[in-house]
């Protein structure tokens, strides 16, 4: 145990925890926006898988990581169109349609992977970007400021999403659509348009989350996400539908995962127990959710399609 508490390993563990938290953060920030508007998207994981595969395929064939990122976001956006059409326009039961989208993403990404790639080859991973000056601060520098650009971007989105939700008229409309769509409607706010836009933003961010996960691992495999998209949905509840809360949940999850990885590597956790230990972050998150989750109220009409009229 004592070898874990050395500066180098602690620093490395926190740094990788932050990196591990990034896909969750991106996905759950996007889902926060969607849920605030009243749409729950259980297809998140499927969208992440499709985007991860697309990014992988593009990176494999062009070697261009920028293009890979863009294509991942693009696929997320396209899946957003499908999700919004099903959930908002067709007013489908969101719990069921989300599972459909998930299974679609899981199956299609696997199929395409087998058909188009076959033998998995690693791709170049995203280089770390040292932020000048800050990266040289002892301890904090290597923990926080030697990450990839995607990591910085994800954490920068936290204040951005907070600002959008709390200090813009658009954010107000999103919250109104999720709390009392009839009131929003009566004031001339198009609930459908607001929800469409929120879902598109959320799904694009889920796409980016899938891509960031892929670029962290550097290789695609079947069910790459291992249901992380569902954890991201849970983290939205954990974070009480706020960007900062969601960030806290993502970091908790990422750090616990990083600690488990480090302990496995150091032999603190015996090999025989490693599968069990891998569930620790999920178990911890669910336990924390029980404690935090019920103290906050979810958007009043979460998951309910809006129908005008009596």
């Amino acid at each position: 145990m004592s070898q874990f508490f050395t500066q180098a390993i602690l620093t490395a563990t926190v740094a990788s925890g932050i990196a591990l938290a990034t896909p969750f953060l991106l996905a759950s920030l996007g889902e926060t926006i969607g849920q605030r508007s009243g749409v729950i998207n259980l297809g998140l994981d499927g969208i992440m898988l499709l985007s991860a595969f697309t990014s992988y395929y593009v990176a494999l064939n062009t070697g261009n990581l920028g293009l890979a990122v863009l294509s991942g976001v693009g696929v997320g956006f396209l899946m957003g169109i499908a999700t919004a059409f099903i959930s908002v326009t067709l007013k489908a039961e969101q719990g069921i349609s989300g599972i459909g989208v998930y299974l679609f993403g899981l199956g299609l990404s696997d199929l395409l992977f087998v058909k188009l790639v076959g033998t998995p080859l690693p791709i170049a991973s995203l280089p770390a970007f040292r932020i000048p000056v800050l990266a040289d601060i002892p301890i904090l520098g290597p923990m926080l400021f030697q990450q990839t650009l995607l990591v910085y971007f994800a954490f920068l989105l936290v204040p951005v999403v907070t600002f959008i939700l709390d200090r813009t008229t658009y954010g107000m409309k999103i919250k109104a659509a999720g709390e009392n769509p009839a009131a929003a409607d009566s004031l001339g706010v198009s609930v459908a348009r607001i929800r469409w836009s929120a879902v598109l933003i959320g799904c694009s961010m889920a796409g980016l989350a899938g891509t960031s996960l892929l670029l962290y691992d550097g290789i695609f495999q079947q069910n790459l996400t291992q249901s992380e998209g569902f954890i991201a949905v849970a983290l939205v509840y954990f974070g009480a539908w706020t960007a900062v809360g969601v960030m806290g949940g993502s970091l908790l999850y990422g750090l616990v995962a990083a600690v488990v990885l480090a302990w496995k590597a150091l032999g603190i956790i015996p090999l025989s127990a490693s599968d069990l230990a891998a569930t620790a972050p999920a178990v911890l998150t669910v336990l924390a959710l029980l404690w935090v989750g019920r103290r906050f109220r979810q958007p009043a009409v979460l998951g309910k399609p809006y129908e005008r009229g009596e």
Partner: protein
Amino acid sequence: MATHVETGPAPAGTATAGPPPAVAASGVTKRFTGGVVANDRVTFESRRGEVHALLGENGAGKTTLCNILTGLYRPDEGDISIDGRAVHFRSPHDAHAAGIFMVHQHLSLVDSLTVAENVVLGWSRTGGVRYSPHRVEAEITEIAERYHVRVDPRARVWQLSLGERQRVDILKALYRDARILILDEPTTVLTPAEIEQLFSSVREMVAGDRTVVFISHKLPEVLEIADRVTILRKGRSVTTVERAGTDASQLARLMVGHDLAEGRVRRATAGSGSQAPLVGPRTGSFFPTGGVPTAGTSVAGIGDASGAVDSPAPAPMLRLDAVCADGDFGRQVLFDVTLGIRPGEILGIAGVAGNGQRELAEVIAGLRPHTKGSVRVGDEPLTSGDARGAIERGIAFVPEDRMGTGVSPSLSVTENLILKAYRSGAAHAGPVLLMSRADAEAVSLMERFDIRASGPHALVRQLSGGNVQKVVLARELSSEPRVVIAASPTRGLDVGATEYVRSVLVGAAERGAAIMLISEDLDEIVELSDRIAVLYEGRVAGIVDAGRCTYEELGLMMAGAA
């Protein structure tokens, strides 16, 4: 159901030359799916700077008309104009842009947002995406001061009382500089003091040349605030009258289409039916003929308030002995309640809401277990918490929450009517329901109980409040019960439906049922009951003879001071 209204759409009051009406509807018809014609060639116009009341019973089409005026519905026929120009609203937003805003009965507010955020939602005076709380809060405070609609702009809506929430909706209208405000039964949720405040705001608005359309079915309010009154009945506009040239009895006649006195029920002689003043001094009599003594009139001396079962000749049909029960949160709410109701007797249960009335009704109906004591119908004791046993012993229950407990809103009239009778009725063969027989039975009940719906297959949630209550009464009373528990049976109903419900209860008593009438409307209790029991903090504070008690006496018992 045939409508028998002879009056067609009448021309609105004065049609002389002058400025065009601020808002006008002509020949507006609106049909809903299921064949309900909510508005039938309605004509309505309102001038600048006036308070124009829209008066009518529940289901007369007042709210539908205003939803059309504000773009929520589109009319099937007819035209709307603002300041003489024809308009075609496709959404409430269009209506807001044209200066017309409706404050709905079910307020349209987002609980988790602040007052200021609710007010600016969907409408920015300056345009732009950035929301700056300080500027908006200052603007709102200024409007609020001017029109006496004070609310803290920084409060979150969930923290506010119903009256305050209504003020937020009014602020929304004023923030958008609406020239025409429609208030849909605004006083329902207000305390008397808040009503006065609302009326002073309304006067301020019309003084500023705005138009206020005031929807109501309460005559005293209409007489106090309106300059002109348009009466709607069964979806049609009956006429428009000047406030100065009318009175309560004329308005009541126009509203229900017949003299209320005709439908007057028996106990008119028994008690003092005082009208508690609702608003201001102009409270008139609802009833053109029947003598309505003024508040405080004592008919006789203080009755016997022994709290025990009176014991003259016939044995009680329903008898409670020292009944105790717990409330929803496990706290005891009924303490040794002892009551008896004889066949043919109406026992009124008076009391301020929340003193155990609801629980008492539920105990008798078998919906709530009693922890001590006994409930007997005739000689048979009721098993605690056995609703089916209560039904089988002839207890009918007209619950307070009629939409939630009384009916299944998304089932048809027929289905709701057979909900209880399916076990015994002829409408089934073994486990199979014979729907055509059930429908036939439903149609005859609809006739007998005057249920106005498009047919037996109409969904109950499409009916107006009065008709829903008639469905409940038809189901509960058609089986000739021995005991009827009626909890707030006329709450929220218009005058006509109220009279009808009362007459049905009186009729059941005359056929020998024991009736327990629970109501917060003391006039109703005094008017209908033979004896009155007052509940205070879960105990019987006293039982008095309705013919020999005073309001003062009842009020003291209700307040725990007797």
